[in-house]
């Protein structure tokens, strides 16, 4: 039997607002427990929610970026359930009328093709607090700092057919929310959390199989591994005559397996109803225009432009537009040095390697775009050879200054002065009569030897093109 995998993702992304979605308490991460929770977040008697306008603007930016319809009228609803980290006994979310309607994103697959993944909806909601089971012997601690943090829940269509596609989609959404500045996407801090719905069906069958929901997927790697495990598990269950049970399963990264979630009531009836404390959210054209006015060029469009404008390969354009910061960096380097392909080579090569080595993000690079552009200028005007340029780059990385400062300080300027080079070439020829004889006898390969000698004599600073030309002239002379 050939099996087909069907995957849909629900992604919760924390919106970059200063204060919470329904209160004025700050959203900064990492504060002492319960120091960033005001009476509204604590669900005190008599408190009322007031919608954070910024959260709505960010949701509208997302909707616009995926070509979705922005609902002119959406409604906040209460999702009722009891849990200690849910202070009010209900979560304020959106149910029947979400703020962002149907949209789509395009993902690139391994084989170079692209695929469109539908986004069913995206809605605003508040986050719950955190239950802390460590440090409290036999008891549970509650930290409500996170309670009320604005989230955008992005729900995809069941359009993905493999774990790899699911990861490509998740990465795409991750790239996008960061690109348009609505979330920092920080997965360690829980700013980007993924749940996956997965089922399998015999290839060719139209009806969907019974799905399971996978929770606790906080990295792309775990997403892929959990899905791979779960697909295999479901196929095994069915092939051994069993039936998949619709349930929520947790991924255990340590054991690399999924298992049914224990304890939490499964058949929860959330008794959704419109929250009477909040008026329906009305959004007009002017609001949308204002919220999206400074929306940047989106990654797909930018990638296409990099190919057409700079003549980059599509793959390279994809790498360089992975984040807005990287793409901005590349464009600034290009602007400074005037040569896009050289800029691309360096940004994806030496710079990326150095960032990788030191586990830094592009924003934290000690070599900024102007500095790298300055270095590339010196390559283009032949002040530096490629090899010396690498040394200069390392010196810049170490904080020794700009390329020009380092060239000056280290005396690394390429020797392009013909008279000076001619003298050195003559010396080398004079010092190696045997090799000269062999060369002249037709052993042309020896040119490399002479170049090496000149380079050695100049400590690598000789302009290789000139050295080549001079040597040929003299040796053949």
């Amino acid at each position, binding site marked *: 039997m050939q099996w087909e995998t069907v995957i849909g993702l629900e992604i919760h992304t924390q919106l970059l607002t200063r204060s919470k979605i329904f209160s004025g308490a700050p959203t900064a991460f990492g504060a002492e427990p319960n120091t960033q929770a005001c009476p509204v977040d604590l669900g005190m008697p008599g408190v009322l929610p007031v919608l954070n306008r910024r959260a709505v603007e960010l949701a509208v930016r997302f909707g616009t970026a995926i070509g979705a319809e922005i609902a002119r009228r959406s409604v906040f609803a209460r999702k009722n359930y009891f849990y200690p980290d849910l202070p009010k006994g209900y979560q304020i979310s959106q149910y029947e009328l979400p703020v962002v309607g149907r949209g789509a994103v395009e993902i690139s697959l391994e084989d170079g093709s692209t695929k469109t993944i539908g986004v069913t909806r995206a809605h605003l909601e508040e986050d719950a607090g955190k239950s802390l089971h460590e440090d409290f012997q036999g008891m549970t601690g509650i930290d409500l700092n996170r309670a009320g943090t604005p989230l955008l829940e992005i729900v995809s269509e069941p359009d993905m057919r493999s774990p790899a596609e699911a990861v490509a989609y998740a990465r795409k959404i991750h790239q996008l929310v960061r690109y348009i500045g609505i979330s920092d996407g920080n997965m360690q801090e829980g700013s980007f959390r993924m749940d996956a719905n997965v089922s399998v069906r015999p290839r060719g069958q139209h009806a969907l199989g019974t799905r399971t929901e996978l929770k606790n997927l906080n990295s792309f790697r775990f997403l892929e591994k959990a899905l791979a495990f779960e697909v295999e598990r479901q196929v095994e269950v069915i092939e051994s005559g069993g039936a998949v049970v619709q349930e929520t399963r947790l991924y255990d990264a340590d054991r690399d397996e999924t298992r049914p979630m224990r304890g939490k009531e499964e058949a929860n009836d959330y*008794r959704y109803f419109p929250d009477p404390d909040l008026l329906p959210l009305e959004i007009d054209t002017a609001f949308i225009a204002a919220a999206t006015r400074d929306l940047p060029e989106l990654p797909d469009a930018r990638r296409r432009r990099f190919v057409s404008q700079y003549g980059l390969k599509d793959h390279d354009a994809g790498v360089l537009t992975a984040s807005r910061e990287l793409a901005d960096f590349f464009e600034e380097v290009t602007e400074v040095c005037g040569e896009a392909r050289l800029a691309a080579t360096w940004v994806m090569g030496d710079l990326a390697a150095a960032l990788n080595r030191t586990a830094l993000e592009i924003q934290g690079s000690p070599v900024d775009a102007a500095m790298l552009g300055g270095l590339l200028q010196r390559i283009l005007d032949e002040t530096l050879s490629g090899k010396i340029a690498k040394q200069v780059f390392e010196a810049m990385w170490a904080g020794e200054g700009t390329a020009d400062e380092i060239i000056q300080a280290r005396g690394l300027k390429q020797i392009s002065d013909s008279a000076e080079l001619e003298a050195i070439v003559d010396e080398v020829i004079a010092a190696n009569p045997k090799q000269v004889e062999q060369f002249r006898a037709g052993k042309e390969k020896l040119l490399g030897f002479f170049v090496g000698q000149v380079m050695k004599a100049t400590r690598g600073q000789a302009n290789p093109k000139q050295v080549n030309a001079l040597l040929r002239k003299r040796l053949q002379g």
Partner: protein
Amino acid sequence: MHQFSLARLAAGLAAGEFSSRELTAHFLDRIERHDPRLNAFVTVTRDAALAQAGAADARLRAGEAGPLTGIPLAHKDIFCTEGVRTSCASRMLDGFTAPYDATVVERLKAAGMVMLGKTNMDEFAMGSSSETSWYGPVKNPWDPARVPGGSSGGSAAAVAARLAPAATGTDTGGSIRQPAALCGLSGLKPTYGRVSRWGMIAFASSLDQGGPMARSAEDLALLLPAMAGFDERDSTSSPEPVPDYPAQLDEDVKGLRVGLPREWFREGLDAGVAASIEEARRVLEGLGVVFRDIDLPNSALAVPAYYVVAPAECSSNLARYDGVRYGYRCEAPRDLEDLYRRSRSEAFGAEVKRRIMMGTYVLSAGYYDAYYLKAQKIRRLIADDFRAAFAEVDLILGPTSPTRAFRLGEKTADPVTMYLSDIYTIAVNLAGLPGLTVPAPMAGGLPVGLQLVGDYFQEGRLLNLAHRLQRTTDWHLATPPGFD
């Protein structure tokens, strides 16, 4: 002093005839003397009241006083008061001290009013007799064997017994108007959104509205501007400007068109109440008011719709009382489920539990459309009835409650009979309209309430007509025996 109107009190304070401290002490002494018979107060804040009075006296001396500065009042114990227990008359919040003031409390405090204490009520405002309080029932000053109405029964009893010149109340289905009617007071439920709900403990958020309770329409007109107005902390509060209500009080009512809903004068209405309303109607006719019969065809659906919507919202609003962060927590819970189950079972009274269960039921999957959604449709129909009526008349007049004060325990065994006590007030909440009650002539030694309903934000018109009535009658001046 305890018989003085708010205007008279303000004049006395301004003239230095008495100080706010003296006035406040006078009311505190009356509370001490009379309240044990009534149980109108759950908390009396003597020291804080005298300190506030002292501050008010300083403002009065400095010439920085407003029309309410130095005048004492009582707050229903549903309004959060910083540093003072806010119980909602529930065991659940018996030990709860609010960390902030409700907007209503804050605004009246800013106006210089002195808080005497917090008044008793039905638990979480669920009830029509003030018998469901964790602190025991409130007695009607007119007859201590009878209920004062509810849920704002403590506020009503306190003002009727002259233990406070005025009080705040909240009205979800009649909780200001019905107790005011049963105690012989004037009470106003403003338009939904007129008064901020911030800090007012929620029962049914789409229906709850705070308002003043006092002894005359004029007093209400003085209190309302200090309570009303937009509040950025309440998204449902209205940006509509607050008019100068006192300035409208004396406007001519000649030619005013007032509708009498046929549905409000049918079976179920006590004959004594009907006769009293008719007498009041004739007085108003004498003032030039033009009456005509109108129809509110969906009136009979109001109580059933209300007992779907209000419990639904309450079941969700009261979910926060879980024993985790504040409020009552059961002894030695075995686990989380036990903590929830016992804390809530032990701390909520029977009526609150009944409504939580009803509300949970009507919101459940499979029942939502049949109950909650249908009730919301009925709600629109009821609002449409009123809209159609206000195309023909300026105000609507009728009884506030079908009966006079009933005996303690008389209706506690039969919730539905109790619910029908609000049969004329509930529709007004469902539509979000302003409603006012003023005393009609007494019947059999007990007060009767006359209800006026206006179009949205027409509080000024309601107060105007009520004041003109009170200028020509003395029904509102009657004092319960033993409290004059």
